[in-house]
């Protein structure tokens, strides 16, 4: 069932049409196998930041039926987001948390999607991520990325943390990698490319890094800890 924080969320009946929970699950099991789908069903993943990285990670994980998603962002959808983020013109001005939850429901309305429209700080990290097993760092601002990674490693060292750095422009895809940089810490990206004039953040390359994060999260759900 879909859990929501305040506004009730989209009507499952309206969005799902004739598709029942069983219809969707049968199709997922057909693609993934039952043992794999069971692990996905039970996974609990938080996504901190719902921009080009986080919204794309969320869509990928929702499509494979990750059972419990926790979407965290403080911003609203802006026209400049649509070059790379999983929103639509109808979403302009809406909080990203609500817009993304509603868009994920058009893929699978039977997932447990919780949202938190808050700023993540050192002080709320422990409570915010208490129920999540895997945390995806998907912020844009480097100081926010750094704060989250340090705070999680300091306060929640047993959580698995997948983060990203270096994804701007349209340089070679082949400089992007996933590295295990600690027992529970994984780093995706090229490690260096920040936005510059004429080489900003664009859907293709940000999307590659997002899907590196999504695949690392999937590997962790499947109990594989190597990058």
């Amino acid at each position, binding site marked *: 069932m879909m859990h929501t924080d305040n506004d009730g969320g989209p009507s499952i009946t309206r969005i799902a049409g004739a598709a029942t929970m069983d219809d969707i699950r049968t199709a997922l099991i057909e693609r993934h196998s039952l043992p794999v789908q069971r692990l996905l069903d039970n996974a609990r993943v938080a996504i901190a930041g719902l921009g*080009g990285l986080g919204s794309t990670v969320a869509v990928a994980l929702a499509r494979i039926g990750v059972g419990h998603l926790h979407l965290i962002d403080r911003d609203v959808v802006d026209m400049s987001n649509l070059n790379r983020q999983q929103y639509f013109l109808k979403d302009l001005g809406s909080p990203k948390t609500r817009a993304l939850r509603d868009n994920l429901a058009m893929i699978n309305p039977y997932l447990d999607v919780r949202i938190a429209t808050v700023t993540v700080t050192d002080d709320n990290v422990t409570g915010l991520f208490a129920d999540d097993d895997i945390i995806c760092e998907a912020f844009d601002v480097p100081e926010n990325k750094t704060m989250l990674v*340090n705070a999680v490693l300091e306060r929640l060292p047993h959580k698995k943390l997948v983060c990203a750095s*270096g994804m701007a422009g349209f340089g070679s895809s082949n400089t992007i990698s996933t590295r295990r940089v600690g027992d529970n810490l994984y*780093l995706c990206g090229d490690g260096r490319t920040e936005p510059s004039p004429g080489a900003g953040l664009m859907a293709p390359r940000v999307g590659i890094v997002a899907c590196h994060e999504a695949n690392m999260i999937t590997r962790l759900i499947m109990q594989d800890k190597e990058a």
Partner: protein
Amino acid sequence: MAVATPISVTALIRLGKLRPDRVAVEVNGLIVPRAQRDTRQLNDGDSVEIVSFVQGG
């Protein structure tokens, strides 16, 4: 990179010309809490991983 030891984590960050608010530092696989960077001394044989972050998401 080889550096003279002992050296504090804060001094190592400065030596690398890195911004302290854009790095996470692990020593022998464990995070050095930000509040301990000034006092935590690194010695010969310590394995240090500095993860640094640039804009983009």
